[in-house]
């Protein structure tokens, strides 16, 4: 083993460099000829809580879809746990990461129980019945997210908050290390928002890596460990969470202030 590798290895142990679970390198993504994302790179480590923000049309949702392998970037690559995303089969990828799209995709009535159990799809062989582990995880999720009253209802009849809870629960049942969540709080009331935040935090404590796209930076800032700001499809900032009024001003054109209460860092718009 060459010397520099050895040094690097030792240093890594000393500094406790956590495993890189998502690495994006020189990502560029176009729809037609229109560039949506340009030259984006970053690495996300295990157990990070990454908040992606940016103006409407900055490419947040597209970035999340590229990371989830739903669409593929024309330039650059994404690697998940050290392996190129294109080397995974769909099912393999679904055992690594859960992508939770905006919930208004549901248009046909489906029973909540079936939606939840769909999280076990990547683990079953073709035509296979659900295993004991599938049902056990289902039960666990029902308790963890307190879904007992919703299980036999039609997903279309749930309120927005309930629906988001069910969608997040599918990621829990999917039993993956990485969760990518697109705008989970759209149109939710504050109570539901905090319920969701608590659940996301709980998932992070279980050791999962969470990548979240949201405009509601006031809500998520206290919980995030890293920030990724996008502007016109380009990376504007990526790094450890820090309160930087210039950054928020550059993205949203409003002034943010910060206060500390009960050991928490709270930011708000001060206009």
């Amino acid at each position: 083993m060459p010397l520099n590798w050895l040094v690097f290895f030792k240093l890594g142990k000393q500094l406790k460099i956590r495993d890189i679970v998502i690495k994006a390198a020189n990502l560029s993504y176009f729809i037609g000829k229109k560039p949506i994302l340009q030259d984006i790179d970053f690495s996300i480590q295990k157990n990070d809580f990454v908040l992606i923000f940016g103006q409407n049309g900055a490419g947040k949702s597209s970035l999340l879809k590229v990371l989830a392998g739903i669409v593929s970037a024309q330039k650059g690559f994404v690697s998940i746990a050290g392996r190129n995303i294109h080397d995974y089969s769909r099912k393999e990828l679904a055992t690594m990461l859960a992508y939770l799209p905006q919930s208004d995709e549901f248009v046909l009535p489906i029973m909540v129980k079936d939606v939840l159990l769909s999280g076990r799809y990547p683990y079953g062989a073709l035509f296979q019945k659900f295993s004991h582990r599938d049902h056990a995880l289902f039960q666990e999720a029902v308790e963890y997210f307190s879904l007992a009253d919703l299980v036999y209802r039609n997903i279309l009849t749930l309120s927005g908050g309930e629906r988001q809870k069910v969608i997040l629960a599918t990621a829990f049942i999917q039993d993956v290390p990485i969760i990518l969540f697109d705008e989970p709080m759209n149109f939710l009331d504050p109570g539901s928002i905090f319920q969701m935040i608590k659940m996301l935090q709980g998932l992070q404590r279980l050791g999962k890596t969470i990548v979240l796209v949201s405009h509601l930076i006031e809500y998520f800032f206290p919980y995030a460990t890293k920030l990724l700001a996008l502007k016109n499809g380009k990376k504007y900032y990526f790094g450890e969470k820090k309160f930087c009024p210039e950054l928020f001003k550059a993205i949203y054109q409003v002034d943010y202030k910060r206060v500390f209460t009960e050991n928490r860092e709270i930011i708000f718009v001060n206009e």
Partner: protein
Amino acid sequence: MSMNKKIWMLGVVVLILLIFSPFWGTIRLNWQTIFANDSNSFIFWHLRVPRVLLGFVAGSILALSGLICQNLFKNNLATPDILGISSGAAAGAVISIKFKMHFSFFGMGSIYIFSYLGALLAVLFVFFIARMIKNSSLYTLLMSGVAISLFFSSIIVFFQYIFDFSDTFSLVRWLMGGISVAGYKEVIILSVLLLLFLLAIFLFRREFLLISAGDDFAQSKGLNISNFRILSFLGLAIVVGAVVSTCGPIGFVALIVPHLSRLLGSSQYSKTVLFSIFLGGGLLVLADLVARILIAPVDIPVGIVTSLLGAPFFLFLLFAQLKKTN
């Protein structure tokens, strides 16, 4: 009333309908005559019974194909007739009749084969258009379905117009949809297809559920949606082609029944499938009974009856959906 009880009740009602409807028609039959060796028993066993059985099987297949189609497109209004698959099959059958092609392939007549080909062609068109317009939304697919359906309808009219009029009447009669000319052979073929179709619906239940929850959601749960879609559409073309080549294009069953079944089955997949079988079969048998006795001795094509019932229901659905989105 519990769900299982509802299914049992419906099953019993449909069974009663199946038992009694062969007795009604232009000639009323009764218990004694059907066991005698005369023309009445011939009418019963060789005309009415296969007709009723075919109605049930064809109705079930149509309803299930509508259900699967709606799942694949995630839209209540997406059915084989609206996407142009039925009219593709009909155009294939018309071409085969007009060119007087009579051959058979593994026991399937030329009309069957041309219907499959027509249905497949329509499916390919839907696919090709969806591929061309990347990021294809539901609406582009539905609109292309409408265009394809109009295209095939004009092919049918074209061939009717330019060729001799010798068999135009029987063709028009066929295009109205009917199950009156059936024999046991058709009943057996379609029954086998129905069983295979049900088996596929059961084996791929997790996939059909996932795909109805949305493309991104399904993909992120590990489903290869493009492969699965291609496979499903090929299967749909086979069953729809078979029904259309046998009974003509019978409209609206594929649209109404899945919708009602979803309501009755409280969105449970297996229950919805069961309701679709009973309701689809029962509805077509009932419509055919109405067609036979409404202005007897005239035997109205059953397609006219289903369309008369279906068109207002379709409008009702459309308005209900508009109301929901506004």
